[in-house]
């Protein structure tokens, strides 16, 4: 009976904690702007297939490179496709791939980091050397290798990005684990004879969760940057799919006389990346974690 009460209280306070964090985030101007942009993009990603005025892949040679007009709000591209339609659809793949990619990065990076921090010793040394080695290969070279090895479908890109952006989380999770591991409650949990698994789940994760989540949010914006760079270089999603990176790279050659077809995807992609960044920053500040002294690894 009493245990039940405690459980309910805990659950209620969790919900209160989350809403409190969101309110704290929105109370700063930068956090409010970031959250609004992010929410706008997420809603747009859900409803854009229903509100898109034209077919995103309908090629019409008679409408090539039309300037913006009442009919085609953002003009048309070199194949006569409506730029507005393609722009509002262009964030869907990027958002989906990077969101699930960040989840994978969080999971494997966080768990491996906690594990290494907990066991220490030889295992830790070996794993950290391998992580260091992966960190010192430029991400773009590694991603290009993976993509040319396995293709550019979503099923490949999500785990590949998840893997490559998780290795930095390993370090953060490991450092955070090191901070809590010497605390008394871990020592007493060990003295009570708890298993490693139980210590990780009940003692360590609640204490390192914030640091890892903040890192994951930050990775999300970097992953989006990486994903769109891949698309831009022609190693990301394949052509008929509307995607901002791809649209920018296609329209770039023609921008001296059709700047509208490059400006629209630029605004879309930049606003989303800035939105995620500001949100992640506000999230870190709401949790009281200072990220500003860290380099992008």
């Amino acid at each position: 009976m009493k245990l039940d009460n405690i459980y309910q209280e805990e659950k209620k306070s969790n919900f209160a904690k989350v809403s409190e964090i969101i309110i704290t985030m929105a109370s700063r101007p930068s956090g409010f702007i970031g959250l609004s942009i992010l929410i706008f993009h997420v809603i747009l990603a859900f409803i854009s297939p229903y509100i898109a005025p034209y077919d995103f892949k309908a090629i019409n040679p008679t409408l090539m490179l039309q300037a913006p007009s009442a009919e085609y709000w953002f003009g048309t591209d070199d194949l006569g496709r409506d730029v507005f339609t393609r722009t509002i659809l262009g964030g869907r793949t990027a958002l989906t791939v990077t969101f699930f990619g960040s989840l994978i990065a969080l999971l494997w990076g966080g768990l491996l980091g906690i594990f290494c921090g907990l066991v220490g010793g030889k295992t830790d040394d070996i794993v950290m050397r391998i992580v260091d080695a992966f960190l010192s290969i430029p991400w773009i070279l590694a991603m290009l290798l993976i993509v040319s090895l396995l293709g550019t479908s979503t099923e490949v890109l999500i785990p590949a990005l998840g893997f490559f952006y998780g290795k930095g989380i390993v370090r953060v999770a490991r450092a955070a684990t090191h901070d809590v591991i010497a605390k008394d409650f871990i020592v007493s949990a060990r003295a009570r004879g708890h298993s490693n698994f139980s210590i990780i789940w009940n003692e360590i994760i609640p204490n390192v969760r914030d640091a890892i989540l903040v890192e994951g949010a930050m990775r999300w914006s970097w992953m989006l940057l990486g994903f769109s760079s891949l698309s831009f270089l022609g190693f990301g999603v394949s052509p008929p799919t509307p995607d901002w990176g791809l649209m920018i790279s296609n329209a770039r050659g023609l921008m001296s006389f059709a700047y509208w077809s490059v400006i629209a995807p630029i605004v879309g992609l930049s606003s989303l990346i800035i939105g995620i960044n500001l949100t992640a920053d506000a999230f870190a500040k709401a949790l009281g974690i200072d990220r500003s002294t860290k380099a992008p690894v």
Partner: protein
Amino acid sequence: MLFLIIKRILLGLITLFIVSLITFVGTEILPGDACTTYLERQAFGEQLEACYRRLGLNVPAYERYVSWAVNAIQGDFGYSLSGEMPIKEVLGPRIKNSLVLASAAIFIGIPIALILGIVTALWRDKLPDVAISTVTIFAMTIPEFISATLLILIIAIWLEWLPGIVIVPTDVSFFELLPNIILPVIAIAMIMTAHMARMVRSSVIQVMASEYVQMAILKGVPYWKMVFKHVLPNALLPAINVVALTIAWLLGGVVVTEVVFNYPGLGRLVIESISNRDLPTVQALAIILASIYVSINLLADLMTLMLNPRLKTLQIRK
């Protein structure tokens, strides 16, 4: 002290060894090899065998790794497949071009970043800070290819001040290269400066809040004397490491920038060699880029060690 330095160097070498293993295995499991790419449709029977023999692909993978590694240490990365010339010769001018780009960006970026970082920290939450910080957030988060594209659109196409893309042969002299690299340098320096300025800012803010600075204020040390004598030396020390990491991280961004501006540097070679399945070149590039990363970090670590008297005594405990 000496022990620490040797330990750092050894760790760096181990990292490089693992990198070489990873890239070797990575390129090994790529579908299709050099010969099938090179011979295209004639890749069967005797011709294929002959090609394997000529490129030495007929021996087991581990033997090839050992001989590749031994040669690579001596600076010989074998032959590039697409151009059939030694990779050393392909890499030489490319490295030079990328170095020109990177060092120009660093020389412009670091002083600006220092000034911006210090100004924003000293006028924290006042108008200069808010204005500069907003700009740096934009410069930092927007992908390289977007800022580069916008630079071309505005400065090269609309204003017609500078050439938009670099159309020079790979082995051009420095002065012919100069007008061509202004835009790429701005594109790279912008992101780098933004990152570094933010780090300098938070580092200075941290030191300003520390007890010895409070003490100096209480003692009545003049403001600017305190800033230059007490705050900056202590604030800039931890920034060295972070600046190194930022520079190393930019290696990836430089690839994209070089593609946008059609600049004949290492970055474009990465894209070209991967598109052409030129695996020996990919391996060489991976090792070279990783070595740059490792040595920049090593250099930063050593600099911090040299400049920080407190760390010199730390080794006794280690």
